[in-house]
């Protein structure tokens, strides 16, 4: 009896292995998020900190003041709703272009000879060796009215007046597709490269032309890679700040910029926190779908092995 209870006190190796990531997530994700959630229910206050406390204890009374100011403004001021919708729209369009451009790239790399394959993958990863900020600044230099692209096209005589791309949504799309493309290619490549090519031979053998085999075998089998890549693009793209700030116009509404403005320009912490909390909820849905998809693939793979 005593031995049994003693054993229960010692955590199993499995528990020990799971503890560090859980502690990490709790300390650096859950606690900060709860703090932000707390601030989102506070009211603006001039002082340090610049928001009212949630709970007060005065005259033997515990006062709990939950201010919904931020949330009410969020749902009444059409600016915020428009920003959310626009962020999702821009992230979606970015994702679609990443799929359209990234799939052929990942496919080509995965079907190259191993030596060429590694070289091409290096080329995909290479931009990460410089900071994102520098790479986006480079796009400013390329897209500006007196930038390299316009100078080149003008000198060729293709256009007579410079194209106005810089400070428009188009520039933001170019920058976002450029910045997020590797995140789509990497998981898709990992999926395509381990595909059993004998399945394609089996499809040809059964009468499928190469494009039919691609459509009915390669595409369905690479679906987990497409979904993983699309999620890796879509989720961070919704909250993107740097690219719309540097390449977008004043009218490019994106949540990252609104949050920045609320925090640093208006010093309205509760409002910024409310914007953040709603965005997290907005992103939880695709994240949950992503997680569901991942678990399903893992289970699928485990079943396949037995």
């Amino acid at each position, binding site marked *: 009896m005593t031995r049994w209870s003693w054993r229960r006190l010692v955590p199993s190796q499995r528990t020990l292995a799971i503890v560090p990531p859980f502690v990490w997530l709790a300390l650096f994700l859950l606690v900060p998020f709860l703090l932000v959630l707390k601030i989102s229910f506070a009211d603006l206050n001039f002082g340090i900190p610049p928001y009212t406390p949630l709970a007060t204890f005065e005259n033997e009374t515990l006062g709990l003041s939950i201010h919904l100011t931020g949330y009410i403004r969020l749902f009444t001021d059409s600016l915020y709703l428009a920003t959310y919708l626009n962020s999702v729209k821009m992230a979606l369009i970015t994702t679609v272009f990443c799929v359209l451009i990234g799939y052929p790239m990942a496919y080509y790399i995965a079907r190259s000879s191993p030596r060429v394959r590694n070289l091409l993958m290096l080329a995909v990863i290479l931009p990460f060796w410089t900071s994102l900020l520098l790479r986006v600044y480079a796009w400013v230099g390329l897209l500006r009215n007196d930038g390299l692209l316009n100078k080149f096209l003008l000198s060729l005589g293709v256009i007579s007046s410079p194209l106005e791309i810089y400070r428009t949504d188009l520039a933001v799309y170019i920058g976002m597709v450029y910045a997020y493309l590797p995140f789509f290619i990497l998981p898709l490549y990992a999926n395509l490269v381990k595909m059993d090519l004998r399945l394609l031979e089996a499809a040809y*053998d*059964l009468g*499928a032309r190469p494009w039919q085999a691609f459509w009915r075998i390669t595409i369905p089998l690479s679906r987990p890679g497409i979904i993983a890549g699309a999620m890796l693009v879509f989720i961070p793209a919704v909250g993107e700040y740097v690219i719309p700030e540097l390449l977008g116009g004043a009218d490019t509404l994106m949540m990252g910029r609104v949050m920045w403005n609320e925090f640093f320009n208006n010093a309205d912490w509760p409002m910024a926190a409310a914007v953040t909390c709603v965005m997290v909820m907005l992103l939880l849905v695709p994240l949950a779908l992503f997680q569901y998809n991942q678990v399903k693939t893992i289970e699928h793979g485990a079943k396949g092995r037995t």
Partner: protein
Amino acid sequence: MNDSRHPAQQAADPAEFVRVSDVVKIFGDTVAVRSVNLSVRRNEIFALLGSSGCGKSTLLRMLAGFEEVTSGQILLDGEDITNVPPYRRPVNMMFQSYALFPHMSVEANVAFGLKQEGVPAAEIHDRVFEALDLVQMAGYSRRKPQQLSGGQQQRVALARSLVKRPKLLLLDEPMSALDKQIRQKTQIELVRILEQVGVTCILVTHDQEEAMTMAHRLAVMTDGQIVQCGTPQDVYAFPNSRFVAGFIGSTNLFTGTIVVDEPDRVAIESDDLHRPLLVNHGVSEPLGMQVHVSIRPERVVVTRTPPTAAHNWGHGIVSHMAWMGSYALYQIRLDAGKVVEASIPSLQLAQTDAPGIDEEVFVSWDADSATVLAS
């Protein structure tokens, strides 16, 4: 033979339903298949037998259309298919790994080929279940391949390759993914299904037992070439080379020189034996030529008393004896040092007073049991 180059003139000769003429395959600077000629009859089960790297799989892949032929010609039912892409050949293959589509159910896997052909949906359903019934897998139509055992996956793969009613069925190492215990049963079952359907079949294997169990005829391949082709019985009884004799079953090989050369028999003097070898068939080699003689272990008789014949026997002691269940394998060391293997059925061992280890014995065989090998 010559008119095989003019497919339009050639009637579909049932003895040459599949005709492979001078087919060569070169990968870079390695020759995988060097000038193979082969004919397969209609509804025949034909085995390409050889160890890995002998070119048998490359030949099969050329028949399926996955590899281009460097030179030569492949005719199927009188039609030149040498340069026809795999998706337009009336040929289906059962892959070594089965290559079942993991994202499709058993039913969808079998239906795949018919859908590509544009067969009406109702007919697809009927034919899919007909094929699944044939392999006794109709009850598993909704399962995914990874939910099936290896044997069940093989049946589905077979149904998938038969459902399009191909003119030629290719089997790539059909038993290699199965456990040894169920292999033999599956081999017999597979042959039963193939004969029931009536399909011409070429299978590739490295397992001589598998080839002999399943095939009507077989070809032994080595180094990109066919070294011997015939029925399993013929190839086993009359191997044409030391390679074939050693590859198909085990054998006792004697080396000697021809001392008597007559049209229907030859005598060969060997240093290993007390008496000359007498072989009941003529050979093309001249008198005095050195040749090899093969005698299968089951043809060797072990006795305690000296044989009375003037030929085909030797004297030695039993050096080893292994009990194999249905037979016992004796190793007898001849006086000259050569070890001869003899397999003796268990029944015979039980009925007679069998010699034991270290006993002096005589080994002998009759003249019909020995074969002279040309190379």
